[in-house]
């Protein structure tokens, strides 16, 4: 008890150094846990981009390519899925629902997705959360559009806004569908998924845009006005991909094989969760490197502590000799220094967790809105607890060295106060 009080007074006497050491440990802990948490959250939110969809069907290319263009609107499909195939899939006894996806147009850089109203019903993200409307309604008319949260926010659109879609997916497009403007009827709540960046229109609307087009270009001398288009057959001849929900999840592999081996059209089906995982694994190296760097920062912080303790030891040699003369045992001197490293590591870890929590709290709105992440730090995961324990353990381990030196000094110095 006595020695503890003295240790506290002694540490307080060296508080500037101690505070700096604690801060450096705290920063490294915040970085280490932050990286770990963002890494897990990013993977989680990535894996949560799409759920409740059993299969995605597209033209035969590669699973990751299909996932990229159908879900993330990145890259281009090699071919389409014919309307006949879509209808066959929809009528298949194992299929509960089939939502067609039609891509290829954009609005000021944001991709346009042509789909059916069922999309809003069946698309799920996170743990099966459905899409929700922040305002308005889903599309009903041919020229209605529903905006993702981010589209509306970035472009400052509200309901009733008239927008002109552009052909192609580049940010700057030379061909605009300015003859058939759309009207914003609804805006979705933020999800943290690519849905936020998408302009949703009906499949019929998508078809109407291109009704006077052939082979990727407007037919010269042939114009169909918006009102005229309404009365025409707006069933498309093909779609980009189809999302399927099966009657039973157990049939998913069987269904996948069945689609992959179809002879009438070269199609492939992927399990979105599995392919998302594959895609994430490709980024694992970067993820690991990030973690390694933050672990190194933690090592640096512990080295700072070690330096401070070892330097302090020289100044404290007379303090130790005095304590010895007063009756302190050599192991008490050892415990004094080791205990100090424990206190510094613990304080650093605690402050680091608080710091990260404060940061997460301060940035929660932004993270939720931008990335769809929730940085909930309490309770910590096993991995985080292990990282914290590892850091504190490392701190104590580092403290063994100065503690042992102090112990040696206590034995060797005797009552001499060496300067």
């Amino acid at each position: 008890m006595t020695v503890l009080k003295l240790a506290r007074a002694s540490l307080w006497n060296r508080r500037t150094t101690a505070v700096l050491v604690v801060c450096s440990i705290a920063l490294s802990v915040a970085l280490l846990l932050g990286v770990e948490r963002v890494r897990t959250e990013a993977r989680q939110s990535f894996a949560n981009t799409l759920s409740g969809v059993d299969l995605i069907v597209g033209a035969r290319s590669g699973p990751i390519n299909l996932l990229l263009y159908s879900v993330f609107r990145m890259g281009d499909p090699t071919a389409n899925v014919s309307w006949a195939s879509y209808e066959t899939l929809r009528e298949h006894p194992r299929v509960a629902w089939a939502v067609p996806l039609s891509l290829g147009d954009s609005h000021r850089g944001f991709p346009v997705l042509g789909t059916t109203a069922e999309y809003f019903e069946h698309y799920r993200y996170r743990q099966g959360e459905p899409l929700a409307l922040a305002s308005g309604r889903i599309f009903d008319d041919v020229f209605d559009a529903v905006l993702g949260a981010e589209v509306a926010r970035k472009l400052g659109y509200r309901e009733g806004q008239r927008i002109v879609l552009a052909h192609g997916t580049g940010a700057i497009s030379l061909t605009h569908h300015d003859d058939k403007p759309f009207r914003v009827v609804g805006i979705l709540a933020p999800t943290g998924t690519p849905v936020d960046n998408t302009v949703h229109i009906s499949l019929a609307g998508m078809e109407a845009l291109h009704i006077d087009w052939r082979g990727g270009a407007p037919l010269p001398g042939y114009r169909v006005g918006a009102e005229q288009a309404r009365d025409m057959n707006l069933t498309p001849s093909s779609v980009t991909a189809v999302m399927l929900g099966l009657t039973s999840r157990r049939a998913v592999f069987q269904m996948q094989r069945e689609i992959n081996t179809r002879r009438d059209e070269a199609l492939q089906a992927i399990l979105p969760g599995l392919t998302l995982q594959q895609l994430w694994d490709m980024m694992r190296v970067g993820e690991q490197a990030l973690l390694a760097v933050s672990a190194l920062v933690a090592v640096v912080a512990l080295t700072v502590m070690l330096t401070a303790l070892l330097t302090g030891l020289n100044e404290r040699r007379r303090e130790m000799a005095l304590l010895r003369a007063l009756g302190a045992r050599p192991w008490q001197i050892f415990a004094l220094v080791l205990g100090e490293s424990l206190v510094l590591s613990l304080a650093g870890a605690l402050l680091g967790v608080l710091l990260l929590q404060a940061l997460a709290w301060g940035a929660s709105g932004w993270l939720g809105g931008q990335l769809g992440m929730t940085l909930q730090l309490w309770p910590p995961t096993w991995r985080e607890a292990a990282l914290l324990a590892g850091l504190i353990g490392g701190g104590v381990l580092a403290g063994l060295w100065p503690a042992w030196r102090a112990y040696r000094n206590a034995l060797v110095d005797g009552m001499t106060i060496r300067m």
Partner: protein
Amino acid sequence: MTAPAALHMADVRYRWHRRAPWAINLPVLTLAAGEHVFLAGPSGSGKSTLLALIAGIAAPQAGQITVLGERLTSLSGARRDCFRAEHLGIIFQQFNLLPYLSVLDNVLLPCRFSRRRRQQAIERDGSPEAQATRLLGRLGLAADDVLRRPVTALSVGQQQRVAAARALMGAPGLVIADEPTSALDADRRAEFVTLLVQECQAASAALLFVSHDLSLASRFQRSVSLPDINALSPPAALASSGPHTQGAATEHSTLPGSHGSRP
């Protein structure tokens, strides 16, 4: 004599490591209970080593050390540490005080390490704080502002007096002073020694006062020269002169202030 001798050393030999020559080779050294002895020895004559042995911080390779009736040489290291806390008061040459404690807390330290000394302070003065204040007062540090001042703001002379008060807390049987006056001005030395002797007398504590300043010796009941009693074996290469003069010669050649306890 009813009380046991404050210190009795017989045939004590000590060296720092196995190849080193003996740093201490002491046939006999005795302090009666309450006796005040001046131990003269130039720097490097093994004073610090001798004090470490008496305090039980180091253990001799041969011989017996008995302090206040307790045979130190048959105690474990931990027991010796405990004994030191309970029965010894120690004053260093300088830097006696913990800079992060107040004057009062510095003086109270022995009572924190030893229940016995705390108890004795309470019996004598009612509380450890009262005894600390009394001792400080007798040593001329009564003013309240001195007690509250950070110890680093005290003069060296004041610091040494605080150290003396601390050494006397809780009635130790033996006070060891390791050149406590060497950092003081000449006119302050005599004053400090007078106070220290007087207070040891009042506390009926034996005092072993080590110094190389022979002018102080007259204030003690007895004076002992360490080179005279410490039979150091001469290094083989320099065996031509006698052991005592040899010891003195090597000690004088060491730089003043350096502790030549490790040859």
